[in-house]
């Protein structure tokens, strides 16, 4: 409400961030996990004094450098760009609190990049001991970038004691910091193994290919053994409302229905299980039969798991950007009461400036929709309001909005996943009026087939 709101038709701003983030996570996890892989694999080459492993690593490191320093770095900046466009209040809050943490991460990032280039360009130009040293340095620097950024990422879900004292250290080392760090490192090792399987599958000599394929497959195993332990630890640290969101979704969504989050969780688990079984029975037990195509299949599954899991992590934080502090639509939780009594369109800088030019009730309603709903919904695309509103008429919509306005979870089932609607009475009517213009077709269709919209039933199924 402080800023002009970027309207992204059909997919919504969240997916702009989502698409860039998923690609970045898959590459950046490789940058860290791959660094650990290179250091360990080079140590193996060093101990065995095996030139074939060295040759493999030279090939693999080119792929590594080209992917992580270019696509990894740029998609990283991309997340930043996209968040600043979609959620400027959220990003500004994070930056005002953690600028120096980011600056510290930047130092490690510079060291990481410089070492990656030095490592890559000095093959055969410095002694093997020195080169191994560079590989280890790269590993350490890249882990440190994770150590810092993990603090900011987990802070958003569990700000912990920061909520009371606003002290950066409490924000960084928050309740989910360590379990999340553990999970991420394990996932990074698995992703590093998957990428290395791709390069290993291209090795021409069969016996050496089998050796390397088997070695890489082992990197996929730790996450499946230790992952569940860290995951349980993680789940014990997140807010109860988030757990409820996973397993029950909206409480009244109907017995026997999985919430969409539970479905994502199960999909992530099934895909991970598939990768584990394939890794064990495929490259681990039968490395000779391993091919480039199978390696690519692993990558696709890996990307799917990463996408699903990161999406789930984002969903767990709903309806907040910073849990319990700032809603995903940029409204501070503590401001909701004031806004509800004084009105939304008098509060935010841009919202009120735009409201002065709104000539009708619908236009005022559209502004509220834009500022309070577009962070997660679109009119007719992703989480389409047209679809969700069904055939409700204005009165039914108004009744439903009255529920969303309540702060007590007993009277508003949506408090766990949707921000409280922060409007005064007149604004609520304007919003209802605007929303009723979105689903005209649906209403018309319902009238034609003679269906009668049931307000109560409909209200409970909007998600």
């Amino acid at each position, binding site marked *: 409400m402080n800023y002009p709101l*970027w*309207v992204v038709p059909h997919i919504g701003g969240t997916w702009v961030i989502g698409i860039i983030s998923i690609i970045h996570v898959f590459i950046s996890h490789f940058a860290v996990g791959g660094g650990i892989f290179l250091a360990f694999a080079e140590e193996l080459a060093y101990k065995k004094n095996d030139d074939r492993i060295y040759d493999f690593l030279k*090939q693999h490191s080119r792929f590594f450098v080209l992917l992580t320093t270019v696509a990894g*770095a740029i998609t990283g900046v991309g997340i930043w760009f996209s968040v600043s466009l979609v959620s400027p209040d959220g990003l500004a*809050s994070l*930056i005002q609190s*953690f600028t120096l943490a980011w600056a510290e991460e*930047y130092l490690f990032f510079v060291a990481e990049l410089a070492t990656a280039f030095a490592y890559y360009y000095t093959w055969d130009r410095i002694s093997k001991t020195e080169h191994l040293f560079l590989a280890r340095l790269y590993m350490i620097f890249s882990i440190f970038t994770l150590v810092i950024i993990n603090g900011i990422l987990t802070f958003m879900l569990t700000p912990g004691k920061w909520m009371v004292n606003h002290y950066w250290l409490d924000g960084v080392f928050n309740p989910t910091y360590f379990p999340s760090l553990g999970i991420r490192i394990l996932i990074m090792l698995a992703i590093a193994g998957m990428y290395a399987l791709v390069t290993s599958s291209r090795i021409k000599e069969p016996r050496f290919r089998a050796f390397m394929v088997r070695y890489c497959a082992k990197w996929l195993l730790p996450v499946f053994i230790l992952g569940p332990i860290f995951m349980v630890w993680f789940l014990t640290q997140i807010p109860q409302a988030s757990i409820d969101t996973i397993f029950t979704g909206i409480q009244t969504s109907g017995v026997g229905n999985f919430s969409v989050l539970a479905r994502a969780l199960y999909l992530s688990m099934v895909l991970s299980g598939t990768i584990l079984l394939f890794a064990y029975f495929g490259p681990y037990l039968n490395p000779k039969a391993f091919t480039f195509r199978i390696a690519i299949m692993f990558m696709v599954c890996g990307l799917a798991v990463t996408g699903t899991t990161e999406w789930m992590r984002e969903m767990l934080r709903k309806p907040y950007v910073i849990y319990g502090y700032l809603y995903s639509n940029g409204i501070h939780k503590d401001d909701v009461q004031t806004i509800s009594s004084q009105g939304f369109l008098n509060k935010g800088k841009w919202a009120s400036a735009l409201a002065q030019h709104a000539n009708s009730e619908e236009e005022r309603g559209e502004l509220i929709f834009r500022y309070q709903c577009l962070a997660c919904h679109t009119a007719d695309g992703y989480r389409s309001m047209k679809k969700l509103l069904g055939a409700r008429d204005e009165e039914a919509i108004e009744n439903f909005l009255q529920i969303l306005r309540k702060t007590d979870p007993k009277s508003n089932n949506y408090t766990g996943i949707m921000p409280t609607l922060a409007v005064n009475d007149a604004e609520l009517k304007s919003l209802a009026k605007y929303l009723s213009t979105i689903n005209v077709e649906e209403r018309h269709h319902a009238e034609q087939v003679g269906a009668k919209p049931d307000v109560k039933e409909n209200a409970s199924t909007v998600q």
Partner: protein
Amino acid sequence: MELTNLIPGYQPLPFPLPTWLMQLLLLLGFYLHALPMNVVLGGGFVASALFFFGRSDKTSYSYRAAKALAVSLPLFISFAVTQGIVPLLFLQLVYGPAFYTSSILMAAPWLGVLAILLASYYISYIVIYRTLKGEYSTKKASVAALLLLVMSIGFAAIGYIFTNNMTLMLHPEKWLPLYQQAATGMHMNSAEPQLAPRYLHTFLASLAVTGMTLGCFGLYMVKRDEKFSDWMIKSGSRLFLASTLLQIPAGLWYLKSLPPHLAAYFLGGDNLITTIFAASMLLTLLAILFSVIAALIGSKPAFIAALTTNAILILTMIINRHQLRMLYLNPYVKPDSVAVSTQWDLLAIFLVSAVALIAYLVWLSKLMLRAFKKPITNDDSTTTSLTSTTAEIAPST
């Protein structure tokens, strides 16, 4: 409507650093970003032209200089991107209310920067790993020239988008009408009077910095191939000289494009601003003088003097650029109004780490220099192209 009513507020949280320190880090960060960024922008065009002119002879100085420049480009791109983090971070922190707003208004082209950057960055690698791989041919050199031109147009477009955003953030009076026209973030600031001269000013600077970079390559080559080194220093200085002379009318145009009341600050209206502006004029004259000597006789001390003068000159211009931003935004964006709660502990960690990083980079550079002085120990096809290129720019003809 009062424009101040359109300026988004800061978050209800204190700043982690005193404002002056944030401004200082913003300036310093931008300086470290501007140097490699200029080489990337100008270097691509220059490398493309050199490949084109030297395409029929791989022993020609043009071809060898083009190759040296092309091979180093990915590293410069990487530095430019990495060093961009600091100024972006502090720009958001100090001038976020203006910067976030203008970015949202031009969200689509602003995000387009990423796609263009990704494509141009990969083209820079394609040139050295695919196009120039293996035996030399005229065709390969021509393809390299063409690809580098495409890449450079990409970087030039990125610069143009940045100039749009950096000027749009200075004009709150334009924001609301633009947003009311369309909320989908498709705007640019193309009607801005200072856009063209400001962009031209930066573009010419990038050619000048590329000239200095070529000269630096010449200094590096001096022991291996004196004639080539001399050619690089002379050509680099000429490029610097030509673009800096063109900078004089371009700079005047830029100054004239500013609103008169703001231009006045640079012409005696404010002591500090005028002093820095005068210093930059003086440094320009000095740089021209030194580069004339270097361009004519290939004198290394004169080139080093031009290089040093230019390094300080860029800093003064960056300070002036920052002051201009402050002049524009002072009535609207007031970072001084935000409470400060300095995170001393984290600041101390940051400063210690920064010193450690510098020490580490010095050590790493020494290691690299030593590595590249020695002949390669294992002649392997997978060895990187930086190694092959140092060998290729090195041979005497």
